């Protein structure tokens, strides 16, 4: 019970934040009833997916300060587990979802154990490398469709809740919205849990953290596993939502960087940061990306913009938009 109480305890936020958050929550719940285009709906679903990716990244990357640029490998494991099990053995989504998460978490221990011996940039580079290696493996593994990927066939009548196959997008919307709220409440619990505090102290000063009885290496591995479970769950969802997955889509470097970027732009190490980041970057990516690519013929310009944003965050406010908000508030007090 105490766990549940803490998951819904937002008392350390100012009232105004809670009103805004409640308003956003209500908007998200009623959005499908409002007039919208199919493109807007797709953008909203992506926004929710990236919010959950970002929340996961935020545990190890934000609260723990370990910049992880290899989250796509776990998206891939989740997505491929669900797709392969559905295509080959007719296994429903709700069965393959926990299996995919478990496989990804298992792999995260294998990767995390040696990688967390590294620090700072070396860790970040190593996460990129492992992710790309796994992508190469998947691209040449014919059992799972190699580079062509997998296409999930239609299973009987729609709407099909077992296999997550729907004609209307709002079904997908509400399923990922449920993930979003579960994730949000989990992170709210996490940030005030023992492991949350320990991780923040590791970020602050690892030597002091170790002198306070914290096994820093193991704390990082455990949190990395939590982050992995988040992204793998969304990966499984992604497979069903898209019907079609390829290594390039679900395991590419772009995805890894976008996940980290959303959380960093919004505010690494804050509860709402990843959501704010996703709310800005996903629409920008979709609308600008579409416009640049189709109209202006400038494919790749969006990537330049991302890089520019990374530089801006690094130079101006490492704690992202949430950091700016906090600074404005405390600045007024002084």
């Amino acid at each position, binding site marked *: 019970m105490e766990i549940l109480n803490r998951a819904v305890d937002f008392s350390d936020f100012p009232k105004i934040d809670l009103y805004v958050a409640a308003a956003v929550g209500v908007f998200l719940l009623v959005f499908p009833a409002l007039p919208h285009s199919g493109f807007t709906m797709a953008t909203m679903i992506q926004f929710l997916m990236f919010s959950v990716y970002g929340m996961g990244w935020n545990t190890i990357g934000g609260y723990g300060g370990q910049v992880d640029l290899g989250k796509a490998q776990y998206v891939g494991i989740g997505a491929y587990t669900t797709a392969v099990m559905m295509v080959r053995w007719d296994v429903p989504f709700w069965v393959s979802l926990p299996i995919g998460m478990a496989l990804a978490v298992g792999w995260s221990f294998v990767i995390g154990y040696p990688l967390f011996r590294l620090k700072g940039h070396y860790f970040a580079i190593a996460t990129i490398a492992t992710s790309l290696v796994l992508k190469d493996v998947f691209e040449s593994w014919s059992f799972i469709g190699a580079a062509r990927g997998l296409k999930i066939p239609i299973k009987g009548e729609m709407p099909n809740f077992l296999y997550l196959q729907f004609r209307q997008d709002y079904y997908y919307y509400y399923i990922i919205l449920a993930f979003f709220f579960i994730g949000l409440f989990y992170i709210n619990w996490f940030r005030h849990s023992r492991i949350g505090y320990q991780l923040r102290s590791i970020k602050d000063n690892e030597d002091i953290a*170790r002198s*306070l009885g914290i096994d820093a290496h193991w704390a990082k591995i455990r949190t990395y596993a939590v982050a992995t479970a988040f992204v793998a769950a969304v990966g499984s969802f992604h497979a069903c939502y898209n019907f079609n997955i390829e290594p390039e889509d679900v395991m590419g470097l772009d995805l890894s960087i976008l996940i980290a970027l959303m959380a960093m732009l919004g505010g690494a190490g804050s509860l709402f940061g990843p959501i704010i980041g996703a709310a800005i970057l996903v629409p920008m990516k979709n609308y600008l990306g579409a416009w640049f690519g189709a109209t202006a013929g400038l494919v790749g310009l969006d990537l330049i913009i991302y890089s520019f944003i990374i530089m801006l965050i690094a130079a101006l406010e490492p704690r992202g938009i949430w950091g700016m908000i906090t600074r404005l508030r405390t600045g007024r007090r002084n």
Partner: protein
Amino acid sequence: MSLLKVNELGITFGGLRANWDISFEVAEGELLGLIGPNGAGKSTLFNCISGFYAPTAGKIYFRGRDVTGFRPFEMARLGLARTFQVYVATGDLNVLEYVMVGSFMKTSSRLKAKAKAEGLLENMNLTGLAQERVANLPVAAQKRVVMAAALATDPELLLLDEVAAGLNPSEIDQMINVIRWVHSELKITVFLIEHVMELVMKLSHRVLALDSGLLIAEGEPAKIVLNPEVIKAYLGERYVAQHSGRGGERA
């Protein structure tokens, strides 16, 4: 039985003997000082004892148990806490949260951790700063916060690495009172490195002196400052030669 026993401890970095053949014991309830010129190997000794460095020779016993080569968090869980000479805060923890990290070593309950941290902050006159970010505090307050976090782990032995460095005289007095309180009220054995002699002389029961990685003297604070080996280590051989006559007269 001694709380901590160090036996012929040595550590070398490349060709440098940072600690060599160091043996001593810390009794339960003692307040022990460690002095020595810069580069004598004092912090290195602390790092060996608290598990940050693995000694290349010798043994360390804590409560009679061989703990040589134990890792820092294992030493902390056995009851050895420490502070650091230099503290670099990069995170966004506030003072209360920082001390709670320490109390989380022994409990996973947030309420218990918080209650304990608040008690410590009150006793150390830090309650007013509870909601401040540690990184924004002045050095003196930061050192007290790190010390409070160390105390929150309920240690039996506390190693203090230059807690008075950079403090002004009134802050030094405050720190002396805090250490006295830790020692007499919390019943924690204290082993401290210090350059501020006022603090060492007022507090320690016994003082160890280190020079060039070797233990050169050991004794009561009043006697150790008259020890020719110690004077030589601080002031050089020539000074001792010039003043040895006068020292004799006074005796």
